[in-house]
């Protein structure tokens, strides 16, 4: 008999532990509600902690705990956590995933809250806020935005005796400079043409006058889009950029940081990391993207959203509301995290890294193209690297690869509408 109770006890123990674990999460330890905040960028953590500290000071009843998941596993982890009911209360959302999450009903609609609390959504760029609305309902509030700029190494430019890139540069100037700057003996390349959709592929496609996605159709088969892709593969074929196979092992930005690449296209959100590299901090420059057939860059920004399954929605809203305001934006900008999307707070970000001409990232706003997305963006985006890979490795054939990609992407788009 005793043995049996012992057995039952042993069997029940894990169940009890599981229950208490859960209720502990929901309960307010010490009269405080603890919110979990899901993020993926480790570079933003120190700055965000300052924002959180300010929020906690204003709301003594709520504390926020950041949950960092690396980008490579952020979305798979989040999806699994959503199903298992352990997703963070508030988390980062991007353009790629918004439609999928909103249409599945796992995000808390925010329109009502925004209205009743007079949240300053209208102080954020409208094109950006629109990304986070689905069928007329707002699901997320932008916290920042980023564009792509051209970084260059002044020391390498001086050595080659070339004028620094400026706002008048065109693709031809870049090509000329890349040829001059390439020095095979020292393994220095003029450009690092990494196969990255946001940093390289999309800006070049739009710069050539092509498009990625328009009216539910793929633009990869378009002649001008192909011309944009060829801008990169040409540089690889001519040896001005390492092939993609090399950049798998040392990324473009790492090559730039170790002064093995003289130029690179980079997302503004990484400026802080460039600033943190002592080797290049004093002689790295940044300017607007060079002009192809047209002027273009890609704009994207992150938003804070609330999980529909959160049991602490009131507190979660308080936090998201705070994050949407001027104060949070200013702290974020002055901590050098990234460009805050709140109107007029960008100055603090520029000043946080005075050596870099960060204003150029904002100068590009007038011709910035929103990051393309559809309901199941990940499916057609996953086709890109496997199909374009060999062309970006110097094996040629970008035209047919891009056309195949266009056809397959159209099929994927058709499937998501069905």
């Amino acid at each position, binding site marked *: 008999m005793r043995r049996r109770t012992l057995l039952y006890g042993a069997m029940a123990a894990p169940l009890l532990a599981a229950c208490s674990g859960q209720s502990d999460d929901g309960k307010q330890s010490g009269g405080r509600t603890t919110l979990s905040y899901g993020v993926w960028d480790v570079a933003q953590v120190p700055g965000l902690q300052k924002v959180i500290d300010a929020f906690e000071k204003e709301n003594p009843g709520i504390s926020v705990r950041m949950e960092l998941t690396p980008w*490579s596993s952020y*979305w798979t982890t989040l999806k699994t956590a959503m199903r298992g009911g352990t997703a963070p209360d508030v988390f980062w959302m991007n353009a790629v995933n918004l439609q999928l999450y909103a249409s599945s009903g796992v995000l808390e609609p925010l329109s009502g809250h925004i209205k009743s609390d007079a949240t300053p959504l209208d102080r954020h760029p409208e094109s950006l806020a629109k990304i986070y609305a689905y069928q007329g309902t707002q699901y997320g509030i932008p916290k920042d935005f980023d564009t792509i700029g051209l970084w260059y190494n002044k020391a390498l430019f001086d050595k080659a005796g070339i004028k620094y890139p400026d706002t008048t540069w065109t693709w031809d100037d870049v090509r000329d400079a890349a040829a001059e700057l390439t020095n095979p003996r020292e393994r220095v390349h003029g450009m690092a043409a990494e196969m990255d959709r946001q940093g390289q592929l999309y800006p070049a496609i739009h710069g050539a006058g092509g498009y990625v996605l328009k009216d539910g159709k793929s633009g990869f088969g378009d002649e001008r889009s192909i011309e944009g892709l060829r801008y990169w593969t040409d540089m690889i074929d001519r040896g001005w950029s390492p092939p993609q*196979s090399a950049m798998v*092992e040392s990324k473009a930005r790492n090559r730039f940081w170790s002064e093995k690449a003289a130029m690179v296209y980079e997302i503004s959100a990484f400026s802080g990391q460039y600033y943190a590299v002592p080797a290049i901090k004093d002689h790295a420059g940044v300017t607007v993207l060079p002009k192809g057939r047209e002027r273009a860059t890609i704009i994207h920004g992150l938003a804070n959203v609330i999980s529909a399954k959160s049991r602490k929605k009131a507190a979660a809203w308080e936090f998201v509301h705070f994050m949407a305001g001027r104060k949070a934006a200013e702290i974020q900008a002055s901590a050098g995290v990234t460009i805050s999307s709140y109107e007029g707070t960008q100055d603090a970000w520029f000043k946080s890294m005075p050596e870099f001409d960060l204003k150029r990232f904002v100068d590009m706003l007038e011709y910035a193209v929103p990051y393309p997305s559809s309901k199941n963006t990940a499916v057609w985006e996953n086709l890109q690297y496997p199909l374009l*890979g060999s062309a970006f490795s110097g094996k040629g054939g970008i035209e047919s690869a891009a056309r195949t990609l266009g056809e397959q992407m159209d099929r994927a788009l058709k499937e998501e509408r069905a």
Partner: protein
Amino acid sequence: MMSVFPSTAAAKKASRGSPSAAAAPKSRGQRAAYLFIAPLGIGFAVFYFWPLLQTFYYSFTEFGAFGGHTWIGTDNYVRVLKDVTVWQALGNTLIYCVIGLLALPLAIFVAALLNRRGLRGVSVYRALYFIPFVTLPVAVGLVWNWLYNGDYGLINEVLEWFGADRRYWVSDPSTAVYAIGTVMVWSTTGYYLIIFMAGIKGIPQDYYEAAELDGAGPLRRFFTITLPLLSPTIFFASIICMINSLQTFDLIYIMMAEKNPAIGDTQSVVSLFYKWAFVENAQGAAAALAFLLMLIIAALTLVQFRLQKRWVHYA
């Protein structure tokens, strides 16, 4: 990555060696026996059999991204069979399987060397060979990626001394699949080595002594005594090895970055399954793919069992 099963030969011996248990009175003894195997049985039912049935059911459905599913009949299977990437992944998986089997002759060779009478420090060698197998695949993948690195990797460094060109081993489509296969062999040889060493230990010394008296050299002894008498162990090991190679995933996941141009040339069926199920929200099609893989494994194992009569000798 690997599951450790007792050798089939050993299991057979065990069941043969206990006829008295079957003859014993039923009731108490039997009930106790069932009780003892119950935890394993329940575990098997909950963690293997039930998911298997579920996967089979889900392979006929379409999934919502966050739960919920609708019946769509055999559409998923049609999609799987029509998809070019599936066939490519299947081809890669077979390459992994063939490369993975190379671990067996290697392990037999080393096991035969280590079983020489009077050899000292055998346990040190055994540990050295076994360590790669118990090292986490993540660590294995990361370290080998450094070794393979095209810019500062040790392998390229060594090759350069001999005047060879630097290569990007894991991102060049022509070498990537073999680079990963090599790591697979490196990390599994130790496991089979232990099995083969035990197998060789089980061969009576008398045979060797008799052969030596008849003037058989070491090579002759190896091919006429060791190899035939080891065949049941080889049979067991080859089945385990084949199944494990067909399920290759972790090394690919760790060693192949998303932007790797060789990704299509190295993707295995299981890594494709992962991509469909967890990245692209195609759980139904992924379930169909998993089920297809199970059928392939079952078929290949059946073929191996059929061929068994031709070369396996139970002493």
